[in-house]
């Protein structure tokens, strides 16, 4: 018995070591022609990566993260870890301020012409001269609800504090998103730096705690599809996938307003493969590729040329592509400085 298990162990560890070697030879053998990409989990059609490798001969080293903060911790410790990354608006602003990004040479990214000029203008809100960011996706934050479990028409964030949905609410687990919900409900800006307003928002979130079933980020989607909760705070980009899996789900951006977010590709200041990174950007901005990614991840694309090929039905659904009216109610996050960030986080710890 013992001998057998010993042999099994040896075989297993040997095979592990071997696969380790193979992986290594793959990535290091062609180290002169690589691009290191760091993206959100499940945020690209994997075929696109293969197609990029085939067309350009560049090997893609691909890793994923799940929060902007996690991404920042990695990149700030060593900006050369990745060449091209995909943070959100306020994180791009923070990284620009902390010299972690490199300016894009737009001559190498001619496909930027496909991006909606209106979106480039919104990006200039946090990237003042459009020097760093190629917008990738955009959308809102709202409430996804199960129409079989909710009888009323949801129009307000108030429903997330309604006792009737006790243990039926899934709340966002990221600091800024959670505070945005509370601040907006109170009628404040989601970029508030007023300590009293934040204190109020914290108390509000604290009073919500007993009603919350779970705090989650990526898992909100699966839980809502499985009918584990009646209400969930979620990014609009998840809506299409969710309704396809569970037609009872509906999405609303509450009337008090919400967050308009923009995720964009940026190049790190430590990038050792900047030209390859620009090829990556140019490739992603190609209409057929943008369309392919939209169809896979279902997050709205700011690529005008790709939008023309998207089904009318989706384009006209404000849950997928937010309309002017919705966007006007929403605010883009801004980076509020290290001190404010610490304060937000300090308050967030008091919520749970």
């Amino acid at each position: 018995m013992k001998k057998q298990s010993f042999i099994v162990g040896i075989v297993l560890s040997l095979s592990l070591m071997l696969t380790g070697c193979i992986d290594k030879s793959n990535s290091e053998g062609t180290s002169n022609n690589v691009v290191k990409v760091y993206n959100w989990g499940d945020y690209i059609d994997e075929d696109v990566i293969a197609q990029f490798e085939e067309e350009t001969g560049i090997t893609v080293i691909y890793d994923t993260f799940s929060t902007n903060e996690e991404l920042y911790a990695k990149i700030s410790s060593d900006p050369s870890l990745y060449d091209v990354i995909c943070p959100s608006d306020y994180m791009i602003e923070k990284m620009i301020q902390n010299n972690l990004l490199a300016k894009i040479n737009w001559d190498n990214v001619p496909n930027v012409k496909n991006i909606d000029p209106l979106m480039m203008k919104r990006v200039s809100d946090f990237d003042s001269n459009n020097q760093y960011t190629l917008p990738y996706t955009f959308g809102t934050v709202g409430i996804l609800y199960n129409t079989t479990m909710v009888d009323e028409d949801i129009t307000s964030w108030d429903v997330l504090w309604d006792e009737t949905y006790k243990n039926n609410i899934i709340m966002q687990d990221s600091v800024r998103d959670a505070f945005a919900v509370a601040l907006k409900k109170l009628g404040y800006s989601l970029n508030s730096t007023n300590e009293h307003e934040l204190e109020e928002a914290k108390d509000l979130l604290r009073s919500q705690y007993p009603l919350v079933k779970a705090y989650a980020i990526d898992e909100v989607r699966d839980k809502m599809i499985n009918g584990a909760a009646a209400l969930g705070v979620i990014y609009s980009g998840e809506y299409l996938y969710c309704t396809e899996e569970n037609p009872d789900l509906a999405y609303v951006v509450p009337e008090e307003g919400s967050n308009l977010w923009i995720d964009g590709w940026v190049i790190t200041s430590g990038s050792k493969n900047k030209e390859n990174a620009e090829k990556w950007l140019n490739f992603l901005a190609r209409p057929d590729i943008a369309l392919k990614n939209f169809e896979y991840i279902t997050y709205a694309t700011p690529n005008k040329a790709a939008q023309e090929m998207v089904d009318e039905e989706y384009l006209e659904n404000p849950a997928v592509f937010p309309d002017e009216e919705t966007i006007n109610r929403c605010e883009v996050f801004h980076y509020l400085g290290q001190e404010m960030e610490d304060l937000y986080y300090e308050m967030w710890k008091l919520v749970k």
Partner: protein
Amino acid sequence: MNKKKWLSTPYLVWMIAFTIIPLLLIGYYGFTGRDGSFTIENITAIFSPAHSKALLKSLYLSLLCTIVCLILAYPVALILKNKNVGQGGFVIMIFILPMWMNFLLRTYAWLNLLDDGGIIERFCESIGISYTSIIGTDIAIILGMVYNFLPFMILPLFNVLTKMDQHVINAASDLGANAFQTFTKVVLPLSLPGIVSGVTMVFVPSLTTFVISDLLGARKVMLIGNIIEQEFSIADNRHLGSGLSLVLMIFILASMALIHRYDKNGEGSSL
């Protein structure tokens, strides 16, 4: 003997690189602020309401977990002691077997068992009992901890009990002690070293865990481990994270010192 001293060089290098230097780094970060100046704020931060609440919760849950493990493991080890070597070894194998599987996978499995629409809920439905998911409660976390750390309690107890001289026990009954007296006066005191190492091996990892509370706590339960982990991963504040780690280390050292003192007392009285 001295000639072979160089044999320890690899271990020395290992220890310096992966124990001493990281410890010094944590000490450095723990006593400096974001601007690099000396401060003890990261240490005193443990008294802020959010942190002390998490620490107390961690202490409470890990203590409970240790007690449950001890109550479950001691009888098992006692039974195994009386089995012959082969049988005992086989049962121990069964206890260790799950440890061959990845710790994360096993905890995920618990999530799938306990969660809404999980196997337990479906089973309860089929026999007509209602089940509300315990994910997100202290019970789920205790369950996860006990499941993962129980082998660390059983093994040292089993070791110490099987090595116990049978003659001592025979002598006790020859001298007129009944089974209960033999247990309280002989077996229990002699097994104290096993209890001590079992308690330490269960208490310390359950005090510092953050994976179990993350997965089975629906992120509603914040233990001190979660706080520290998130200082590094989310808040980008390695200074506060290190400071709190230092405090946690002090707690672990203090509890170990306490346990070992009891151990010595125990041995002293039995001699």
